[in-house]
């Protein structure tokens, strides 16, 4: 049971329906960071960073929502996304993406854990300032979203296919123009 009396919706949708004034900027941030197309990182890559950080924070709802969205954009399924979350270094994602996930993992621990060498490695593999900026901010944002979802003890559907089945519709509607109750 959630810590406070929330509308009976899964995950972040409960607190968002409870507090529309804060839901609006939260969703605008997600839209700009994860879905806006004026970005050299693909939507799939950005969702993957979100899913990865959510798995490090052990947030079941967020890692499944954003893992399913990453899978939708990158044309892969739960096993491939799980393999990246478990040990991205041994998967066949690009070296640049690996260097960005390494930065995201450090951000999850704490901002000070990001080392100069990690930044230099990412730049050497072609990451731009903006891509590094966005990686850090996406990782930081998920440290917020995950805490919001779990800090209020929201509930989440256990069936992981629930998230996979919803991903195409979520991808199409985006983070701003959707009905929290659907």
């Amino acid at each position, binding site marked *: 049971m959630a*810590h*406070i*009396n929330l509308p009976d919706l899964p995950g972040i949708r409960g*607190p968002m329906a*409870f*507090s529309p*004034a*804060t839901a*609006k*900027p*939260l969703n*605008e*941030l997600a839209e*700009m*960071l994860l879905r*806006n197309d004026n970005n050299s990182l693909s939507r799939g890559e950005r969702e993957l960073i979100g899913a990865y950080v959510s798995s490090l*924070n*052990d*947030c079941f709802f967020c890692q499944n929502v954003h893992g399913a969205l990453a899978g939708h954009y990158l044309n892969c399924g739960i096993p491939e996304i799980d393999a990246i979350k478990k040990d991205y270094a041994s998967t066949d994602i690009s070296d640049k993406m690996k260097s960005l996930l390494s*930065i995201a993992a*450090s*951000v999850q621990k*704490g*901002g*000070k854990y*990001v080392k*100069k060498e990690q*930044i230099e490695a990412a730049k050497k593999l072609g990451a731009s*300032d*903006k891509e*590094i*900026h*966005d990686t*850090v*901010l996406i*990782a*930081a*944002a998920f*440290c*917020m*979203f*995950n*805490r*919001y*979802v*779990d*800090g*209020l*003890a929201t509930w989440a559907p256990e069936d992981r296919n629930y998230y996979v089945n919803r991903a195409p519709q979520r991808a199409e509607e985006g983070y701003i123009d959707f009905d929290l109750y659907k």
Partner: protein
Amino acid sequence: MPYISLEAHLPGITGLLEYRKDTAAPIRSLTQVLLRGPSTLSEGERELIATIVSYGNECKFCTAAHTAAADTLLGESNTSQRMKENIVSAPVSEKMKALLEIAALVRQNGKNVTDEAIQKAKKEGATDIEIHDTVLIAALFCLYNRYVDGLATVTPPQPEFYQALADRLVKHGYNRLPQGYDHLKKTATEVK
């Protein structure tokens, strides 16, 4: 030196918010709603929540900035100092202590917020909205602290810098200044 190219006269968070104004806009409005919007928690109390989280995350820039903001709003610096030393013996209400404890747990991880911590806050009179806002303020500062330190932004050593920043936050809140921040170029040179 910051890991990415930021404007030299804007240390800490401001340079980041000016670097990418399109992501800054929702971050600023979220902060404005949470820390300055209508609430049964005072602005000073909400700045204390921001301070305790930033302090726990060892983010020097955010800790100094929000300590100065809390002190300015409260008109004294004893409360923030003693809160950072020990929440339990801080000169704040029992309800506020319970909310600060919840914020400290959120900082570790959302899952660390216990039923006991929530029940204590409710027993001391905290409403659902106050608990919601406490959790989201704490979570938001977990974003800010990582953003500021994760890109190695500059932390000015001068206390006057944070007092000037706090005066701005108290007077103007968290929305972007309509005239931008070019007027700070002169100040930055003087401080150097």
